[in-house]
């Protein structure tokens, strides 16, 4: 039910981000969504892309500090209040969202998030009929 996210450790100085992007360009990897969580010194560059496993290998070869994380991707209508409804079911189940970001794809909202309890989150998604997106769909639509 989860998809692969690349989590890349970068230092907050010029030249570190372009190194990652250049490596992805070389490998002809398409970025579907990305966000940077930063502190004063570092950033974690999170990205959803085509062929994440190959992307991870290519980045490692280029000397990038990268990890593969499992995150959920669910589709919601692009309407006010839909994100609140989606997140509410997790909060009611006592699941914490570790981080979340979103983007639009084919006119639909996609929420990407990780939780503190993956198994429980998966059953919540199932029981509440939330629409989970898998990797093949994402790559095809993008």
């Amino acid at each position, binding site marked *: 039910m989860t998809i692969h996210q690349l*989590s890349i450790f970068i*230092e907050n100085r010029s030249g570190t981000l372009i190194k990652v992007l250049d490596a992805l360009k070389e490998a002809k990897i398409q970025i579907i969504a990305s966000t940077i969580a930063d*502190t004063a*010194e570092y*950033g974690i560059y999170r990205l959803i892309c085509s062929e994440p496993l190959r992307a991870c290998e290519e980045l490692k070869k280029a000397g*990038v500090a990268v*990890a593969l994380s*499992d995150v959920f991707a669910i589709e919601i209508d692009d309407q006010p209040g839909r994100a609140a409804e989606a997140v509410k079911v997790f909060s009611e189940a006592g699941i914490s969202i570790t*981080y979340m970001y979103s983007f639009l794809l084919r006119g639909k909202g996609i929420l990407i998030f990780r939780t503190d309890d993956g198994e429980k989150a998966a059953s919540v998604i199932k029981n509440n009929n939330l629409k989970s997106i898998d990797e093949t769909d994402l790559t095809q639509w993008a």
Partner: protein
Amino acid sequence: MIWNPNKECMSRDERSALQGKRLHKIVEYVYHNVPFYRNKLQELDIRPDDIQTIEDITKLPFTTKKDLRDNYPFGLQAAPQSEIIRVHASSGTTGNPTIVGYTRKDIGVWSECMARCLTAYGVTRDDIFSVAYGYGLFTGGLGAHYGVEHLGASCIPAGTGNTEKHLKLIRDLGITGLACTPSYALYLAETMDKLGIKKEDLKLRVGAFGAEPWTESMRKEIEARLGLKGYNIYGLSEVMGPSVSYECQMQNGSHINEDHFFPEIINPVTLEPLPVGQTGELVFTTLTKEGMPVLRYRTRDLCSLLPGTCDCGRTNVRMGRIQGRSDDMLIIRGINVFPSQVESVILSLPEFAPHYLLIVDRVNNLDTLLVQAELRQEVFTSTFDTPAAVEALEKKLAAKLKSVLSIAAKVQLKAPGTIERSQGKSAHVIDNRKL
């Protein structure tokens, strides 16, 4: 003013005779009380009776920091534990600190040496003297404290930190003397500027500065900003603590309390003694210490002994300014730091590769230490995807460094492969301070 003219102004012959007598006694004492020294002396086929004059000292074996570490914690202690009334500790090169025990007599000798030093600076019992070295395991605070009390001045045990309150006391109590590191003295000056306190508001007139290298230009700056006269004080815990040597009014080298600590200068490579005036490694033999005497302890400090006599009337030999180290020890905020200590911490944490860099700087007159440590590839697992995870690792390393180094270091995590590979220990350090 001279605290103890009998000892500080002895003729050369008298002093040599006293040193020879004391050396024989101390060799006999360690031979019978410290198995480490007995074994070393026996290996060299030396009996205590072979040591009669101070010139015989060259027959004796050297002691190194490694010997202290190998015999941690009490292996080199000569006095029974029941006679030890104080224990200090300083940083070791790796892992274990250096432990030094003092008997009541040792504390007395130390206080005497400190009183000689303060008197040479012009401090009297009418002074109010603030000790702003660190109190605790570090010898600076308590060492200076006991000397001030022994002299009879009023001692203010300020310690380090809480600088604003300290400045208030310096002003309100009319404190006249100050003992601290030169960089802390400059930090006090900065704080005065910040609070709008002028040197004319203070009665400071004498400063005892040491525990870290400092320059003539730092002296001038401290003197100008605090409105006092600054004197150098030198010491090391392995030998005693502060007051092994001290400047007098002439400020041309520091007089060594050589009736207690016999100095030699050696070539650090060949270990051959060097003639007076030549620069080499400073070596001390404690002539009267009971708790943990040391024979020919290699300080790793590079300096020379100054020829000739001093116009102040003291006859005890002077040492010149410390010109460097024969090892890679750094002195940061008065604390001894070895790159190998940082290495041992990094190697003890599985998240880090054995690649690191220490960057030392001086910002607003305070030393800073930045440790860059390289993460292993294995760290990058599925949950290493939040700033919180990165910061937790950063904190873990910082806490461990603090407990081993006794000073706080800022930690910077580096991605795998981003720290330049180097050969040799010195390549692990960038010291940007202008000393």
